[in-house]
């Protein structure tokens, strides 16, 4: 099986530029005392990042903002959220989401 030299270059270079943002803060910030406001700011990062990532999946289609473009996604996310709240199970919510999406596509095309 072949591995092209160009792909090796891409893999190594992309790996490196990804590795640095991943490791630097953990290595550096854990040794410095961070100011209180920064700690509070960081405490919101999980929520804002997840919300942004979710919004990106729901509202962006083909790199363009389309509020109702991913209507199936907007519909399927409702049972996903409900299951997450009621059953507190990540696996169950992912499964429900996938099933809903599959059903929507199957019946509505």
């Amino acid at each position, binding site marked *: 099986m072949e591995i092209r030299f160009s792909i090796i270059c891409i893999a190594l270079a992309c*790996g490196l530029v990804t590795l640095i943002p*991943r490791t630097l803060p953990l290595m550096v910030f854990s040794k410095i005392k961070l100011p209180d406001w920064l700690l509070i*700011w960081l405490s919101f*990062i999980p*929520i804002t990042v997840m*919300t*942004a990532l979710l919004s990106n999946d729901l509202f962006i289609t083909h790199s363009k903002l389309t509020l109702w473009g991913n209507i199936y996604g907007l519909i*399927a996310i409702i049972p996903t959220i409900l299951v*997450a709240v009621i059953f507190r199970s990540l696996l169950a919510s992912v499964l429900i989401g996938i099933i809903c999406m599959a059903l929507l596509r199957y019946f509505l095309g």
Partner: protein
Amino acid sequence: MNHQHPTIQSDVITGFKACLPTVLGYLGIGFAAGVIQKAAGLSIAEIGLLSALVYAGSAQFIIAAMILAGNPISSIVLTVFFINLRHLLLSAALAPYFKKISLIKNFFTGSLVTDETFGVAIAEGIQKKTISYDWMFGLNITAYLNWILANIIGGILGDMITDFRKYGIDFALPAMFAGLLIFQFLTEKSKIILYIIVACFTILIFIFLSIVLPGIWGVMLTAMIGSFFGLFLEKIWK
């Protein structure tokens, strides 16, 4: 009475178990990534290499698309840099939990940071007030190996599956983000209203920013601005 001191082994296994709920979502996305990379002309070995060295779904999707379009390597690397810059925030948010860990161990923990494992780890950290290095190791390694495997399987089976979208598998990623988001809300019940307000505001910021500034910056800038809003609200709430 049954005293169980957490051993390295037991922590790693607990971390592995904590990863299991995300494994399905990962499998779906990794599978999809494998299919798309195969369709872009990458060999199974190349897919394995990218999965192991880059280990980032969105980046791998983009790499596949750009290779297919014949973009120069420099453009690909630059694009991947910006797409993955958000890991800076994730790593920074995890840093306070790893203060007592050595530099090298933190390097290894950081090298495997992803959106999904971050969500699981931060929930653990908020709930238990601490994150064990070995637990994190179990979590990370499980996710990592699962990802590489999913990509390879996707690459192998990709030719056979004509339309995986039919099965809704591509919705695994947003479903997982939604699930992890809800868990964030539930980790600190006293702040749940605050969190919901911040999340709604963040959605508005995202929509606004993507009109004004379409592209890769969207997610990261939105998260940063949303967090400042959260900081502001928390300060005036007191």
